[in-house]
């Protein structure tokens, strides 16, 4: 009985006092499942894969559908195809990814890297940030930036104008290039950089490529041309991420889970058939299933590619009446790179460009009939096609419903609901981007 009494006494005391602090406190409420901080090499791949995935995934699907390269034919996608289903709720996910999974992380990465003097991380961060910002302003127009990603310090971030965003994009790219041109501060970027493996010269080329794309959007063809010429010189330079058979690309996962919702568009089929583009068509115009020969699991998703740069050079030369032979070279390089990207032989390319409809010779190259047409085809399912469509109003598409082709994305439903600064009245059809004349 004495022993029992002692046990009871002990239990009571342990219950009430001895253990009070350790029982209730002692970091019991510290989340053991998630780290409270991580190092730069754990954030960089996250930002890169996240961006490549949203760019080559939902962004690619929506833009190539609006650009009539693919057609929504079943379930939700049939209502997206005629624009009626593309309500603000449909843009929640992509908006969330850009702000919550790219921008806030890249800001933190840049500030952490700068603090420690790890300039290569900071430089790559600035280039990635510039790319994301340009995407966002191109899809949505005015967007929160200067007051964005500050948590509860700014719960209604103000919207910055598209012009201001573009200014920031160029400034970030310049700063990124200058940081990457110096030392790494003692922490080299390595295999955690899943795009270039820490190769600073490739990052500098990529920064110039993004700059060229930006200047092209704004109609500054001279600046675009000059930037393009300091960028990619081969397909090996592509700013791209190759998915794998086990970590599959966005299109493959879509075709796996949503088989039959999207298919190849008859408009593009007709355009390519008219140009006897049978080889590329044979690879692209297949049922959108997991065994599709182009939209493969291990698709090499480019953010910006050598072929796009070559088409930019050709377009700028055409618009500025530059050298016809340079223009022809760039034009043909672009087509050739597209064939190679599609897994086709040089022979197939040679046959194709031997046709006068495709290549009537440098001096006869028409901006729309040749350069923009081949860019439209050559950038199959790249989101940039939607920018070209709006910039050039070419190719001339028939709206799938109503009388207008969408000129922008809707803001996220949640931004409309929860941010009182969200501009009212936006639709898919207005307002146009500042560069969209």
């Amino acid at each position, binding site marked *: 009985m004495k022993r029992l*009494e002692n046990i*009871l006494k002990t*239990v*009571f*005391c342990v*219950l*009430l*006092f001895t253990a009070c602090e350790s029982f*209730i*406190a002692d970091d019991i*409420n510290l*989340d053991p*499942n998630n*780290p409270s*901080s*991580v190092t730069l090499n*754990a954030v*960089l*791949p*996250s*930002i890169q*894969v*996240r961006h490549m995935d949203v760019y080559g*995934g939902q962004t690619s699907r929506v833009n190539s559908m609006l650009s009539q390269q693919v057609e929504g034919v*079943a379930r*939700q996608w*049939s*209502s997206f195809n*005629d624009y*009626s*289903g593309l309500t603000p709720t449909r843009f929640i*996910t*992509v908006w969330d*990814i850009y*702000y*919550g*999974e790219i921008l806030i992380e890249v800001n933190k990465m840049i500030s952490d890297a700068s603090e420690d003097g790890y300039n290569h991380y900071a430089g790559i961060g600035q280039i990635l940030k510039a790319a994301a910002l340009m995407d966002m302003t191109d899809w949505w127009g005015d967007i929160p930036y200067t007051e964005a*990603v500050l948590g*509860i310090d*700014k*719960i*209604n971030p103000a919207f910055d104008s598209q012009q201001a965003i573009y200014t920031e994009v160029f400034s970030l790219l310049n700063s990124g290039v200058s940081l990457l041109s110096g030392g790494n501060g003692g922490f080299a970027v390595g295999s*955690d950089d899943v795009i270039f493996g820490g190769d600073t010269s490739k990052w500098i080329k990529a920064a110039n490529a993004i700059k060229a794309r930006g200047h092209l959007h704004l109609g500054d063809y001279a600046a675009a041309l000059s930037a393009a010429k300091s960028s990619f010189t081969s397909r090996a330079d592509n700013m791209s991420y190759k998915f794998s*058979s*086990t*970590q599959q690309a966005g299109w*493959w996962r879509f*075709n*796996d889970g949503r*088989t*039959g919702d999207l298919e190849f568009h008859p408009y593009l089929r007709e355009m390519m058939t008219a140009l006897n583009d049978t080889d590329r068509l044979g690879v692209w115009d297949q*049922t959108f*299933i997991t065994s599709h020969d182009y939209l493969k699991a291990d698709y090499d998703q480019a953010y910006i590619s050598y072929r796009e740069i070559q088409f930019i050079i050709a377009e700028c030369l055409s618009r500025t009446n530059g050298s016809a032979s340079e223009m022809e070279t760039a034009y043909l390089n672009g087509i050739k790179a597209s064939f190679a990207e599609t897994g086709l032989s040089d022979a197939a390319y040679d046959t194709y460009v031997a046709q006068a409809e495709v290549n009537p010779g440098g001096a006869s190259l028409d901006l729309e009939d040749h350069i923009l047409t081949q860019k439209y085809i050559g950038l199959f399912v790249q989101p940039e096609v939607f920018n070209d469509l709006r910039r050039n109003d070419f190719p001339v598409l028939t709206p799938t*419903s109503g009388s207008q082709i969408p000129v922008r994305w809707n803001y996220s*439903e*949640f*931004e409309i*609901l*929860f941010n009182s600064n*969200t501009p009212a009245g936006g639709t898919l059809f207005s307002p146009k981007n500042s560069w969209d004349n």
Partner: protein
Amino acid sequence: MKHSIYFMALIMCIQVAFAQSTITGNVTDDLGVPLPGATILEVGTNNGTTTDFDGNYSITVQDGSSISAGFVGYETSTAVVSGQDQINFSLQQGNQLEEVVVTSLGIKRESKALGYSIQTVGSDDIANSGSNSALDALVGKAAGVQITRSAGSAGGGSRILIRGVTSMIGNNQPLIVIDGVRTNNETLNSGSSTAGTATSNRLMDLNNDDIESINILKGSAATALYGTAGAAGVVVITTKKGAEGEMKVSYTHSTGVDWLSTTFNMQTEFAQGRNRSRSNRTSYWRSPGTGESSSYGPRITDLEYSTDPNHPDAPSASDFDSEGNYLWDKNGFLVPKGTGNGVAANNYQDNYRGFFRDAMQSLNNLSISGGSEKATYKFSTSYLTNEGIVPNEEYGRKTFSLAGTLQANDKLKFTTTFNFIRSDYDRIQQGSNTSGLLLGLYRTPISFDNANGFSAPDAVDSPSAYIFPNGKQRNYRGGGGYDNPYWIINNALREETVNRVYGSFAVEYNVNKWLNAVLNVGADFTSDIRKQNFEKGSRTSSQGLSSLSQYTTYQSDAILNISGGDAITDKLNLNYLVSANAFSFQRTGLFTDGSNFAFQGFINLANASNITGSESLLRNTQMGLVAQVEADWDSTFYLTLAARQDYDSRLGVPGTEFKGSDYSFVYPAASLSVLVSELLPKSDVLSFAKVRASWAQVGGPPPFSYLTTSGYGITNVGDGWGDALSWPIQGITGFEIDSVLGNSDLKSELTEEVEFGVDLRFFKNRVGLDVAYYNRKMTDAILNASLPTSTGYQNVWLNSGEMTGKGIEATLNLGIVESEDFSWDSQVNYTTNENIVEQLAPGLDKLFLAGFSSAGSYLIAGNQYGAVVGGSYLRTGSGGANDDGLNIPEGEVVVNSDPTSNEYGYQAVDPVQRAIGNPNPDFIVGWNNKLRIKSFNIGFLLDWRQGGDMLNGVAWALSFFGRDQLSAETRVESPTPIVGVKADGTPNDIPIVRDQYYYQSSVGGFGSVWEQFVEDGGWLRLREVSLGWDIPMADLGIDFIDSGNLSVVGRNLWYSTEYNGVDPETSLTGVGNGQGVDYFNMPSTRSVMFKLNLNL
């Protein structure tokens, strides 16, 4: 403080020189008939027992104390103990009720003293319900309680709410206390809330036959002593412990059958196919090989078979094998009548109904109990097998329970319980996922045979029904779309194994009237191992997946009660309670996924080329200190004052210095009860009258652990339109900042409640009416307040919500007929509750609970909890002066008047989502009847739920596919204008046909408009009906069996509802807070069970 505890411990250890003696005896009514279950109490203490089946009892008490005997409907009798060892009581049928109920912390009190509402449901009501789940067995038997079964799956759980909700997004299910300690009633979801399988609530582990009684503590005053844990109400379950007397053996066997109640009203006329084009709206059949999803094809009666690959309408070559045989139907493909082989097309309309089976269930239960005056024991074991109505769905449960009491000496008493439960489940995928059973089952066109020529039962075990020799899946979408139902039940099962041990150990040390100490320690350990199979080729995981989850949940609870009390004067009685409580919870999770199988037929990590794993740990601790004083004056006025201080680890901010005040909060409770009938002259009409009032505050805990900080998580790479990627990628794992921002300033939620009630009994208690009204205000509700994502975060945790709740609950007891050969007792329970969300967070007027982005259940300031918001038709007045931006404007429907639009003539879509439904019922009535005619017992329970809207996602989706009856009728109608106005305000005169293009537009299935799919989910239901017969063992000359009973119980045999679809008693999101969403949930079942009970 520290000293006082040692002091208390010391006091406990002092041997006090009061002699104790054990009294035995029996309790009978005035005619000498034994009263089993009568309560024996040592007056002024918590020491008590109940009489056994023969009315015998045994109790150890202080010499010189008094013991009382009470029984429902009888006057309590008291006797003083002075040396005798036997006291028999003969109770007079009384005017007053002297029921003793178990209240908070196991304290037994006379119900007349209570200033708040407690309702008791007895063991018979549980055991004879025809359900194996204690929660389901409670339906309709208690006022203020709403129980919703989440699905008709074997082993599917139920959700219980007491007096509506108290937390906006946290737990709203009551605390379950078994034998004095907190017990795990969690529901662990696997997968997203709208997909996956049915899940169990852990209270299902309890064998109903072990339950002695269930007490439901409803309001804040009743639960205040449980602190935050009891904020949503408390269900106090007492199990059987055995009683002094000879060994008793009780055996129960039941065998039953469950079958499908109803299915959706499907069309049976039109085949797979679609219209040729918008301009040529003739329909044509399309082969499954095309992946065609719709049933907007020709009438099946206009089609016949052909096997000729050269037929002009023959499907593409890929639909034939190398020998030229059509792949998708052994009879051939379909062609217009007159062009084929003359064999009329089969109508496989029984695809879905025939798929279900009559499911058998059986339960064997054995219990052995008995005891001496020093000790009692009870052992029981049960074995349940329960098939689901879906083939291959199974639920099995084995329980072992051991309970006993030991009166060690005059002062010391031990009570212990020990339970082991083993449950096994084979579950079926349901809801919104491509392997969800009913998606494929309901959407399959009538021209496609899921069973591939087999009879439905044979197809279950015939792989060639659902898989081709090359391993590709055979389904109506050419291998795409949704899994073939026969594929799912063979290749996408989830297996679960739950091993659980729980029990309690109580020591009671009774020093004297003023000092009684009880220490009750309980532990509850659950191991839950799950394996989700997806064979290679499943639509959910085309490369195959074996997904293993191992959950280990451990919780412990320790309560120390010190109490006492006695008469101070001849009118004033006082007693007190101080109590301390410590609780800890910990759940570890270990998850391993193996995907990309090398070959089919071996769903195992060993066959996977990609294996990933993760772990999780969830933990929290709570402590509480309680003080309570009760006073009664002249057995007429009863006053109770209580206070509790809680400490909760979930309020702690890691990395900061410990300060008790950061973790703690105090709240008070007071209640008053007045026996008006004591103040009135004795009356033949009014036998008893009590009015009561109470006020209390109760804290609510943070809804989850770890909300005070935020960090990084592994990056989610996906966009909702396909599987997300899993890290590591290229050997690296990427982390991103949490999307939810933590808040170091969080404090507890607070509920303040007033309750008024009356308890009236008439005509010698033949008629009883108990009514309670309560009014609650919940403040500081913790919300994951939405932020615009441009802040970098989607949500932040904030103490900001406010909500009110009020309701009335009433219980009417009627002894309609009472005679020797015939009696009819009836109880009506009425429940109404309304929770209004008053405020969310600053700048936030809407918070998503559950459902889909196009329609779901939300919290909206000024609206009922869980209001359904979704797309609606555009109306005149939308956006106008009278449009509040939420409710549907009172105006005419505007039709799309743009001739170039594909939706010309259809209803236009309101760009704003509107409040389109309220999922909360207006009221719930349960009418429970028990009739006895000689040795026959008849019972029936009617369950009436008035109102409560459901989002009919099945109707929504099936209209898109043309599988519903409505689309079959409207597609052949002549063109008619939609009632409404055109954009210019003139009456609509644009004729349209509601055909494929209509139902595949914004106003059809998968469109953004939901208002036409919101339906009243109310019902009137014959929940239980039973017929029992007390076998006259003596008359039959069977003397080794004391008594026996044979009964048949029917459950859910009939119901009436206006809801178009499966039984509206369903919830896609299971036990979560968001309710009112039906999206291909498992249909409910009806059941009949035969039961034999023998007592030796």
